[in-house]
């Protein structure tokens, strides 16, 4: 996957830092994370298909600290032939641009490892709008040449039937279609289909079920430094 390709992780994270939108309750605390406080512990489980592999991909909103303007998310991924992998990110939503304050990774039953700032630096450049996978927000604030709205469609998914807003973006020969529903908050994503020239650009993601009551897997207190082996893998990309 090249640096210019659409990344799944980016889309999966879109929903977390959104300022809410119509789904926010009237008595929600003020601030950019106000609407998310009631979504703490909620998440989504997806199946992802890419290059002959099927991945179990899950994303959870672990903690929302509205007073500190922080959220903690965890991503879990496992395929038949890979070790289970957890990643945790602590993001600060102060100001208009979120920053990744800390990141951790855990492989299988090994001890968690802290991702050094050098690996997180690129993540600090994310624009707040990239984190919005709210159906209403996308529909209301889509800009010229931005994601093209293709109307509403009712999708049958393992999680149930749901009416979604269908969007499409195209770049460098890659076409990304994604279906979003506020019924699937906080993640919002229901289905994603990417078609491109490279094998890594051809993948499909489908919501399997929504999750609640999620707790953190990674305990940052127990995290050690990133191993040399892992550092070599991460910096090789």
């Amino acid at each position, binding site marked *: 996957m090249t640096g210019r390709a659409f990344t799944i992780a980016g889309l999966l994270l*879109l929903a977390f830092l959104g300022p809410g939108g119509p789904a926010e309750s009237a008595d929600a605390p003020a601030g950019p994370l106000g609407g998310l406080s009631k979504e703490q512990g909620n998440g989504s489980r997806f199946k992802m298909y890419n290059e002959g592999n099927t991945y179990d991909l899950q994303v959870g909103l672990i903690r929302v600290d509205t007073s500190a303007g922080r959220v903690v998310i965890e991503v879990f991924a496992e395929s038949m*032939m890979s070790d289970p992998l957890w990643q945790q990110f602590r993001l600060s939503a102060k100001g208009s641009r979120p920053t990744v304050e800390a990141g951790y990774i855990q492989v299988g039953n090994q001890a968690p490892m802290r991702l050094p700032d050098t690996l997180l630096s690129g993540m600090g450049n994310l624009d707040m709008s990239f984190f919005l996978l709210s159906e209403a927000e996308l529909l209301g604030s889509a800009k010229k040449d931005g994601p093209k709205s293709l109307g509403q469609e009712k999708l049958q998914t393992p*999680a149930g039937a749901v009416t979604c807003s269908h969007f499409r973006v195209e770049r460098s020969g890659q076409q990304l279609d994604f279906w979003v529903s506020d019924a699937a908050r906080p993640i919002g994503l229901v289905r994603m289909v990417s078609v491109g020239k490279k094998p890594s650009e051809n993948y499909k993601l489908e919501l399997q079920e929504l999750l609640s009551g999620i*707790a953190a897997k990674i305990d940052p207190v127990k995290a050690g430094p990133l191993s040399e082996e892992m550092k070599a893998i991460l910096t090789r990309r």
Partner: protein
Amino acid sequence: MRGRWLLLFFLLTALGVPLIAFPQEPNPARELEAAQKKLQEAQGKSTMPAQESLKRRDVKGQSLAPSQAEMEGLTPEQKKMYEDIQRQLGEIRENARKRDAALEELSR
């Protein structure tokens, strides 16, 4: 094995790349649509379809982990077979990890 590892990292750590290049210029058509939507909301009219209920599973304070949902509907024999396969896969992964580590060591 390493190839699959790399794929996972590409998917899960490539966060530094803007996903969708939202331009900053306003789109009058969209703004009109948003204004109409706000007006309808102010008038108490719903602009979205009724919220649908998607299947939600309470993991009861557990962390994200391999789902047991696939096991629903399996007979006890099939469940045992599933668990055996998972165990064998775990052993294969561990062996592959050791092999990779040994190869890495040899290549130094």
